[in-house]
């Protein structure tokens, strides 16, 4: 057999002048689990995709299975023994387990698929990964964890020597995650070289033999697992030993990530009232009150957003932050709890109910859920306002134009051309159009929900969008609740941030404690699978006391980013 060893040397890859990977080295010997850490955009995905043959690297070599390559095609990558299990699995739901394992390499006899032989071999492979499903089960009927094992079995059937797992537990329940960890340990003893991409430090501690942290396309930290502390890893991920605090905190920042302390540390921060806007926020009337709210894969959660307040929901993909927003907006069905806008109780069974109550949502997937690409900019921004503006069932064209012009000025739309089709605008300006749908003069929105408000938006437009949202809150008193997976964005936009993990709110950060480092360590450490040892001050108090102690719901969580 070939030498099951992966050695990457000096790998670089640029996209239009931006260095996604800059001279990255990574060596994984046989029988080792190597954890790959790094924040969104650090280069983890690019590294995996170069390895899988999706991108040709600009420079560097990939040695795998005993041969060295400067670039790989997907086919060569598989032939060399690399198997990548992506977060969004590539199994075919309508086929059986055996058919999936042998997809593209079917065993044939007399020109037809030799089903029985395939199923026998598949059974052996499933046993190797300790999967409980049968080779004849339809993959679509299996829970997430089993589907993942099917994909790993498929990799084994192709005699993979290097296995890459991309955030494998993001879509799994607690029990499934624990089972997967055992499988990974088995596979290590079977001699595979495993690259394990994760956000969770607990998993690193349990599984990894070595760790590499990527930041801005470079190796920011490398060590064997015993040779570091959690703090070092978090600092390597964030890349700033002295994180910039939110707001104009007078004097030194309290409760920062580098300051380990007890729970009293937090009390002190509140007392200090370092960020004055938050103190005001507390006295302001609550605009959105969510109590005991439950839905598919999350809850119960308690959320309160005051008039003119901007609150962030920060968590990993699959943590439930998108589902909370979608359920508040009525595009998913709530299973319990109450929602109030001001004094009024709201039950939103569909988006139009939520809109009637003054709750609007700007969805994360702009292409699929927000934009009407071939329609004009004006139609995109005013679509729900056309009927309210109309008089006696006839559109008020002059008023529509007036509202559009005011809006395009307020959000800084470029170009400010009402008739240009939305597809012709940049991502940032498209986002302004979708956002403008709810913040124009013709609408009265009490609560604005934003899901990944600047996804696919360039840096300049990002700042403009933050300004628009901030002035909306401060001038019109709109309560803003946004979900984000970008700590930089949370720090820039939020006055207060709730940490979401596995469908629960596990912490809260406000004022001076709201830093990128604090956010990262809060989610990296908030996990059921690992023991929450030595929780530092920054992991914050649990706002809803039962949230952390109550057992996890059995509902399997699926990856929601794309769903």
């Amino acid at each position, binding site marked *: 057999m070939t030498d099951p060893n992966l050695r990457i040397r000096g790998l670089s890859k640029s996209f239009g002048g931006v260095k996604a990977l800059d001279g990255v080295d990574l060596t994984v010997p046989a029988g080792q689990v190597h954890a790959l850490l790094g924040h969104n955009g650090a280069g983890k995905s690019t590294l995996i995709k170069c390895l899988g043959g999706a991108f040709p690297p600009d420079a560097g070599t990939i040695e795998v299975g005993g041969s060295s390559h400067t670039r790989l095609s997907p086919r060569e990558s598989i032939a060399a023994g690399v198997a990548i299990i992506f977060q969004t699995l590539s199994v075919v739901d309508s086929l059986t387990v055996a058919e999936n394992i042998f997809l593209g390499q079917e065993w044939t006899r007399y020109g037809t698929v030799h089903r029985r032989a395939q199923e026998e071999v598949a059974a052996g492979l499933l046993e190797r990964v300790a999967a409980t499903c049968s080779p004849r089960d339809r993959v679509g009927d299996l829970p997430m964890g089993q589907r993942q094992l099917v994909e790993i079995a498929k990799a084994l059937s192709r005699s993979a020597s290097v296995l890459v797992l991309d955030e494998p537990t993001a879509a799994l329940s607690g029990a499934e995650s624990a089972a997967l960890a055992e499988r990974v340990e088995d596979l290590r003893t079977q001699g595979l070289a495993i690259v394990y991409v994760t956000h969770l430090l607990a998993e690193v501690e349990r599984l990894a033999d070595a760790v590499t942290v990527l930041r801005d396309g470079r190796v920011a930290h490398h060590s064997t697992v015993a040779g570091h502390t959690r703090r070092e890893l978090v600092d390597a991920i964030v890349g700033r030993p002295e994180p910039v605090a939110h707001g104009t905190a007078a004097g030194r920042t309290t409760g920062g990530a580098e300051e380990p302390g007890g729970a009293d540390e937090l009390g002190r921060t509140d007392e200090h009232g370092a960020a004055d806007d938050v103190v005001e926020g507390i006295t302001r009337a609550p605009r959105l009150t969510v109590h005991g709210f439950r839905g598919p894969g999350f809850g119960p959660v308690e959320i309160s957003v005051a008039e003119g307040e901007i609150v962030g929901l920060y968590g990993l993909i699959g943590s439930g932050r998108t589902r909370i927003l979608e359920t508040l*907006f009525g*595009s998913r069905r709530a299973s319990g709890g109450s929602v109030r806008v001001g004094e009024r109780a709201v039950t939103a069974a*569909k*988006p*139009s109910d939520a*809109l*009637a109550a003054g709750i609007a*949502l700007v*969805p994360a997937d702009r292409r*699929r*859920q*927000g*934009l*009407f*690409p*071939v*329609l*004009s900019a*004006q*139609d995109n921004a005013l*679509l*729900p306002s*056309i*009927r309210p503006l*109309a008089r006696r*069932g*006839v*559109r008020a*064209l*002059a008023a*529509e*134009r007036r509202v559009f012009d005011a809006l395009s000025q307020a959000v800084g739309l470029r170009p400010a051309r*009402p*008739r240009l*089709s939305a597809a012709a605008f940049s991502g940032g300006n498209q986002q302004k159009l979708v956002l403008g*749908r709810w913040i124009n003069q013709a609408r009265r929105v009490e609560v604005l929900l934003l899901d990944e408000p600047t996804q696919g938006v360039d840096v300049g437009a990002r700042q403009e969008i933050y300004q628009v949202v901030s002035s909306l809150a401060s001038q019109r008193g709109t309560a803003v609740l946004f979900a984000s997976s970008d700590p930089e964005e949370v720090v820039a936009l939020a006055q207060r941030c709730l940490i979401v993990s596995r469908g629960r709110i596990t912490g809260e950060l406000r004022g001076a404690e709201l830093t990128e480092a604090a956010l990262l360590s809060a989610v990296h450490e908030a996990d059921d699978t690992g023991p929450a040892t030595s929780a530092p001050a920054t992991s914050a108090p649990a706002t809803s006391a039962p949230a952390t102690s109550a057992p996890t719901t059995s509902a399997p969580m699926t990856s929601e980013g794309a769903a």
Partner: protein
Amino acid sequence: MTTATTAPAGRLTPSPRALAGGGLNALRRHPLLLVLALMVLVFQLTTGSFLDPGNLRGIATDAATLAIVAVPLALLVISGYLDLSVGSTLALGGLVAGWLAGQQHQSPAVAVLGALAVGAAVGAVNGILCCYFGLSAFIVTLGMLTAVRGLAQQLFPLPLSSFGSGFAWLGGSRIAGIDAPVFIAALVLVAGALFLALAPSGRHVFAIGVNREAAYLSGINIRRTPYALFVVTGVAAALAGAIKASVLDSVVAGTSGAGFELTVLTAVLLGGVALTGGSGSILGVLLGVLFLGCLQNGLTLLSVPTFWQQMAQGTALVAGAALAYFGPRLTR
């Protein structure tokens, strides 16, 4: 491909220069206009009688029934749906109107209203199944095409004829110097254009066709408007059937309106309405209808056999699609 989506908005009193620019724009958006003009020229030169008032009147009357159904069908296609059952609905509408007027000796108004009610019923069935139950419009209306034809033949196994002079008014009289069917078609065209330009639901039709999910998340009722369009399309098909029955003074259940659904769809698609939904205009539909009407008439004048005419019609559709696909790439 934004055609009508942008055209009517904005200034209400355009300057002459804007009008000229608009004319050029219209030509760029509707290359069919140029093709139509060329075709008329060729037919006039080869036949010498194509532009005679009598012939033009014949073309207009033939095109009228096509236009009456093409307008609501175009709106339905823009909103992302489809109705293949219009040929059979047309037959059933004509039969019901003829039966009421001829055999039940009802007044022409009752006869027409009866036909419209039947058309509305067929449209409502299509609409409920497609919009509220979410079944595929292609499958539902394909099924209805066969089912309604079967119903028509079961109810009216024998040809109907002699509907009386009162009923003949619908197809033969003149309103303000224009043949009644042409007058009705003009009303339908104007109503369709006004709906798209000035009714709030007109915008919703485009939005639903472009991105149903985004429209739903914008709080738009994504079921009601397409449902209403299915009903209106059924009504329009039945009205066209009543007009045809009145003009011909006879209806045969087995053959009336056979293949009509494909002709109407051809006109709609030639007129630049995208089958994927979200774009199209009433001006385009008018051009598509006129193009088919002129083509058929000119070729008949030239004594081209029917089968060749069918080939020409089919070729025109494919050529039009190819032009729409390759045209923008060539000019860029």
